[in-house]
């Protein structure tokens, strides 16, 4: 492949550009649609909404999910809410404000036309979800309630208590199941997609493994939609579900799909930290706790006394000390970096010295336990359940954790990847969040892609390309199937002695150290060496028990972790090449004397899109970003 395809950005002013684009898209006869197969991989917000909508339009849709039910996709775990610009006369919100917040929040590393489209669509998403019966919070008068969220000065986040993702997902899931009942969707659960099938460079299907029988299957179609989420699990410990994986997008990348800005990964500062080597995941605690909590560490490095035995004058309220204006409400990335530095310097608390205190004692004393319980009751219970400590009596321990990945497969304005016929939606693509996603914007993007954007652009692609039949016996299908079979056989016959989790754990600790909260060139280079060495050990010493044709959870994990190795290397390359600090990507070499991130618009106002190059080094392409509606400004919190 040579270079970057045309991103097909709209011409003219960005306002209403999506409407203009849509009006010019070719249409397709309803009669033809029922003869066209479309594959949707993944059933989170993006996948379920896209599948339901494409089926409603009349396509024959096949949906693949590795879960036992589409309702389990990890969108279900999103807590806070979904942003939408629904101006009411008195609050001053508008489409242009949501557009500006999204673009600024992403530190000017996203396409302005994409951000504008997202803001324009946002309101319809809420209407759509309400019509499906999503029980959003309401005001006493019966209208939709909103709350405000980080990075915004208006109240535009719609929510369903702390389970907004769950309720939105169930709305999309139910719409999907309705199409299943109507016979327009073939739902295939417990299928892991392990490869993409291309014919003459066009996406034509996937290879999937049936997770119960172990059978390898070929599914062909005229268009393939990957809606498979992000890759935070490269870090092993993250807030993602344990089986969230990057296999489908990584395999598509190996088949020619460009991967954009893989190093843009978001680390959330307030998570319940690791307590034991066998801890399997980190759980997010709402950031709102920092409104009433004070963050501190012992002044003396190596101080192992319990919190209540450390007198006031020996405590370092480091955020209040370093950032007197913002104090404990210092932005996510800064708070995360300072916590990490102090833990590295030996001040950290907890069994492994990898956490900081979030102390509500002062607020409880001033306002009473009841007031704090009313505000954060469910979080306090969750913390107590996981840690075993009573947060009303002992300060909570928190630590930053990987949470969301802005990077993903490069897509054009039509959400099509650099492989024609392959569309990528939701967290799996690189689109509107730039170098940093704002709270409550992930749900908005997933549903905008699935309900409103992809159905139009996929249709346009199908209308504009000639129908070509492909049979599962086509050499391209047979080759992909055989390659996957060989890959599985190699893993099973590896003959080593170490279970896959041990490698994954080690990969995670390399990546969080070298490509986590802050990065520097020396560390990244070291990380590349470490990942290469570990990968070699993985291939020499991995043990995967069992057979290919039976339920085999270890084999599933081994296939995923093998892909994480490739992705980890690409993330490191991307982090090394981006010689600036922007959003969640903080390069220690590029900071001001005060420790603020220094963006380099002259040299890096672009999307880096990486091309897979076999066993050689990946090739970096760039798509320049142009800003007409809003000029780049510097983020400042001082």
């Amino acid at each position, binding site marked *: 492949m040579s270079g970057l395809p045309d991103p097909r950005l709209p011409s003219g002013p960005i306002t209403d550009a999506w409407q203009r684009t849509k009006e010019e898209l070719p249409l397709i006869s309803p009669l033809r649609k029922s003869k066209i197969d479309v594959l949707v991989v993944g059933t989170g917000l993006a996948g379920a909404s896209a599948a339901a909508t494409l089926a409603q339009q009349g396509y024959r849709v096949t949906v693949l999910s590795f879960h036992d039910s589409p309702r389990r996709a990890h969108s279900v*775990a999103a807590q806070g809410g979904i942003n939408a610009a629904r101006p009411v006369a008195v609050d001053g919100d508008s489409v242009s404000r949501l557009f500006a917040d999204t673009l600024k929040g992403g530190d000017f590393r996203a396409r302005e036309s994409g951000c504008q489209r997202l803001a324009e669509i946002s309101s319809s998403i809420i209407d759509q979800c309400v019509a499906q019966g999503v*029980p959003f919070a309401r005001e006493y008068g*019966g209208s939709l309630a909103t709350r405000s969220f980080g990075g915004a000065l208006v109240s535009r986040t719609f929510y369903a208590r702390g389970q907004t993702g*769950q309720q939105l997902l169930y709305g999309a899931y139910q719409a999907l199941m309705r199409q299943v009942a109507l016979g327009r969707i073939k739902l295939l659960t417990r299928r892991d997609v392990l490869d993409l099938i291309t014919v003459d460079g066009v996406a034509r299907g996937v290879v999937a493994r049936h997770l119960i029988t172990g059978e390898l299957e070929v599914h062909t179609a005229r268009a393939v939609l990957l809606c498979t989420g992000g890759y935070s699990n490269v870090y092993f410990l993250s807030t993602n579900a344990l089986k969230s994986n990057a296999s489908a997008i990584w395999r598509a990348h190996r088949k020619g799909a460009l991967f954009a800005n893989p190093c843009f990964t978001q680390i959330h500062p307030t998570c319940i930290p690791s307590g034991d080597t066998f801890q399997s995941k980190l759980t997010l605690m709402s950031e709102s706790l920092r409104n009433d909590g004070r963050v501190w560490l012992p002044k003396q490095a190596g101080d192992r006394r319990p919190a209540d035995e450390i007198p006031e004058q020996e405590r370092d309220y480091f955020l209040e000390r370093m950032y007197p204006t913002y104090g404990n409400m210092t932005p996510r990335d800064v708070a995360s970096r300072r916590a990490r530095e102090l833990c590295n310097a030996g001040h950290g608390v907890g069994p492994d010295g990898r956490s900081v205190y979030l102390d509500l004692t002062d607020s409880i004393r001033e306002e009473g336990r009841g007031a704090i319980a009313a505000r954060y009751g469910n979080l306090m219970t969750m913390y107590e*359940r996981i840690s075993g400590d009573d947060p009303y009596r002992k300060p909570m321990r928190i630590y930053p954790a990987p949470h969301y990945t802005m990077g993903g497969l490069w897509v054009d304005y039509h959400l099509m990847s650099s492989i024609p016929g392959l569309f990528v939606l939701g967290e799996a693509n690189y689109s509107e969040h730039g170098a940093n996603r704002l709270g409550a914007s992930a749900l908005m993007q997933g549903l905008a892609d699935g*309900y409103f954007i992809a159905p139009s652009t996929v249709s346009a692609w199908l209308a504009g390309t000639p129908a070509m039949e492909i049979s599962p016996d086509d050499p391209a299908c047979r080759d992909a199937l055989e390659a996957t079979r060989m890959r599985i056989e190699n893993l099973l016959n590896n003959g080593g002695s170490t*279970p896959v989790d041990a490698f994954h754990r080690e990969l995670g600790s390399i990546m969080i150290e070298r490509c986590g909260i802050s990065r520097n060139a020396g560390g990244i280079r070291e990380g590349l060496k470490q990942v290469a060495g570990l990968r070699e050990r993985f291939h020499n010493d991995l043990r995967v028990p069992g057979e290919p044709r039976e339920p085999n959870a270890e084999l599933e994990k081994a296939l995923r972790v093998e892909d994480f190795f490739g992705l980890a290397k690409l993330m490191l390359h991307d982090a090394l090449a981006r010689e600036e600090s922007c959003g969640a990507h903080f390069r220690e070499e590029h900071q001001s004397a005060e420790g603020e991130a220094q963006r380099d618009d002259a040299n890096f106002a672009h999307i880096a899109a990486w091309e897979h190059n076999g066993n050689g080094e990946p090739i970096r392409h760039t798509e320049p970003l142009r800003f007409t509606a809003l000029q780049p400004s510097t983020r400042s919190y001082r």
Partner: protein
Amino acid sequence: MNITLRIWRQVAAHETGLYESHNLKNVSSDLSLLEVLDQLNERLISTGERPINFDHDCREGICGSCGFLVNGQAHGPRSATSVCQLYLREFSDGDVLTLDPWRAQAFPIIQDLMVDRGAFDRLISAGGYCSTGTGQAPDGNALPVGRDQATSAFNTATCIGCGACVASCRNASASLFVAAKLAHLGQLPQGQPERAARANAMQNQMTAEGFGSCSSNLECEAVCPQEISADWISWMHRERRS
């Protein structure tokens, strides 16, 4: 702490199963029960034995993937908790925990602690939705929904589809699952046009799937991780008559 797990092992639906005991010494009480199974599996793998198969994913109690009986109780002894949120500190040193898969005709065993809950998806397919296509929605504020009404609908909509209600019922009834969905949509204006048809279709499907009828012993409510009230089952029965 030291703990003994007595785990149901069954290779496939048509095979016979048996309990297998494993003693675990010096495990941290800060581990969840699923993390103890992870640890046991690493040991089994390194000695060449087949690891224990169980469904799980988010490990924060919201996806509904995990679930098995711990000493006969669905999701174990702690209320309002799914099994991924159950930590060893809930137990005492030397305890023996017997782990069984959900047992219900409508949930065939796949392997070990893993069962097939596809019947729940088919119940939703039978009518657990509002038939509104994309792009056909009126303004979200066109129909006001009172705050209490929205809250009550939300409470029933929180069901995570784990299957504990079925597994804990002596008739293996899915009444709480179905009632929760009917109540979620039946309390909102958007759910009214199809309300009666939905109630009939979902309850007929429940029978067709081989779930039993409600025996009113309320164990479903006691084990529900989302604490959905069994009062909605009585409400459901009235729905069908109306």
